[in-house]
């Protein structure tokens, strides 16, 4: 299934885009596809997936209409 994955922060900067389309049925499969992009591969190692705005494990299935995002390590606040 074709999935549009939302990108933010360092990942978005790495590919110069706010989203990317890949094939996958689970977040793990999406991760494997994204990792084929050399610009994304290094930051993906420490990234987590969110489906419909909640963190999920890589085993989580992705359904048509789901909002999928890859979340690299966050850095809110000031310190």
């Amino acid at each position, binding site marked *: 299934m074709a999935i549009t994955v*939302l990108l*933010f*922060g*360092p990942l*978005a900067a790495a590919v110069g885009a706010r989203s990317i389309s890949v094939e996958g049925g689970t977040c793990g499969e999406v991760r494997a596809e994204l990792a084929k992009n050399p610009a994304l591969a290094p930051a993906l190692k420490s990234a987590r997936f*969110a489906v419909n*705005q*909640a*963190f999920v494990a890589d085993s989580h299935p992705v359904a048509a209409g789901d909002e999928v*995002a890859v*979340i*690299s390590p*966050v*850095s*809110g*606040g*000031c*310190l």
Partner: protein
Amino acid sequence: MTTSVTARLHPGALPRGLTLAETPGCGAMVKFEGLVRPMEGGRAITGLAYEAYEPMAVKVLEQLGRVAIEKHAGVMQVEVHHSVGFVPNHGCSFTLLVAAAHRKEALAAADFFIDEMKREVPIWKEPVYADIQQ
């Protein structure tokens, strides 16, 4: 006991006068403000640029507020504000307000919330270096 959680994102620096309305039974109100320092990794910056996965950031901030209340008996209110976009040096980009019956749980809940926020909330910051042409 009635409790409440509020989470808001704001464009740019936050106002410095944020405070909570009077809460019956509140004996302690803790206010934390995170301020942008003018150096990052030994280099001068003009400020920090914040980016957020906004709908999820608000959801997670609200969830953390509810967890902070559950884990710290006596906490009545958690209100959090975070900047999105550019915040210049010395500006405030994060404000946390916690109201509780007593001091200990107010301080503990604030500390807990900030630790969790820095791990879980989808907000990223990038320094804007003073020595780079924008």
